[in-house]
């Protein structure tokens, strides 16, 4: 089973009210070092079999048509996570 990760972030010029609320809450817990937070979305798309270039292309197409709205969001990552060792390591550590 293959898995493609799609990550979507609000465009830099769009005010991110959710990120603003989070950055306001962090100092109350003692996290005073974070000056800005932006909140995005992560999608995990699973397929039978391997993640082929065709699967990645389809994920890219889905990312820009349904998973994001280009008026307010950027697709920042479309990746085969099995082939992406760094991402797998971070997930394993979580």
């Amino acid at each position, binding site marked *: 089973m293959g898995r493609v990760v799609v990550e979507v972030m*609000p465009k830099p010029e*769009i*005010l991110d*009210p*959710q990120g603003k609320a989070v950055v306001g809450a962090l100092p109350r817990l003692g996290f005073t070092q974070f000056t800005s937070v932006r909140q995005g979305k992560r999608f995990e798309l699973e397929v039978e079999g391997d993640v082929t270039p065709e699967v990645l292309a389809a994920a890219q197409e889905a990312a820009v048509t*349904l*998973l994001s*709205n280009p*008026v307010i969001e950027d697709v920042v990552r479309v990746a085969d996570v099995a082939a992406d060792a760094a991402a797998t390591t971070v997930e394993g550590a979580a």
Partner: protein
Amino acid sequence: MAAPTLDAARIGVLTFPGTLDDRDAARAVRLAGGEPVSLWHADADLHGVDAVVLPGGFSYGDYLRAGAISRFAPAMGAVVDAARGGMPVLGICNGFQILTEAHLLPGSMVKNDHLHFVCREQQLVVENASTAWTNQFAQGQTITIPLKNQDGQFVADDRTLDELEGEGRVVFRYVGQNPNGSRRDIAGITNERGNVVGLMPHPEHAVEAGFGPDAADGVRAGTDGLTFFTSVLASLVRA
């Protein structure tokens, strides 16, 4: 209540899973003298209606983005085609969000800048009284209709905003306090042709004295919303 004419215009009201205000919209159509026709999102047939209202609510629970999943409903394909052909389409609140996701109107809506759900009687100024849905208002008229939303902050890039302003396509602007951080106080816009209008506030909740916003002539007496629906009937008679 206005008596429906023998050949009353048929105004479709499109319901998605999670739509809330379809009954009020249908009632507004009836009070204005039109014949409301219930349309279902899974049905690609618009049943020969003369205009369509996309009512408010939380279609698909606002999952992914408000209006993002509804945009791909079979009925929306037919609405997009009909709108491009000139049929009047009104998107209210979630309906406005669906129209932007469907690219019938530019820009998008994000969460209110203060992050709270807002519900209030909202004053608007009518800046374009020549669209299919506003032609019975006076240019510059101030109206009051309810506003209730969470993702109501209208955003677009400066070029798009300049284009909307330059072409007179800002139909409504918030008067007094901007309730959600919308760019340039924009509450509603139209397409180039003036047949597609979207706005965040709710005209369908201000159509009958006793059940509307407070007005100069009495508590809950406001019926400014009814003019949206008499406008579309007038535009269909002229067409």
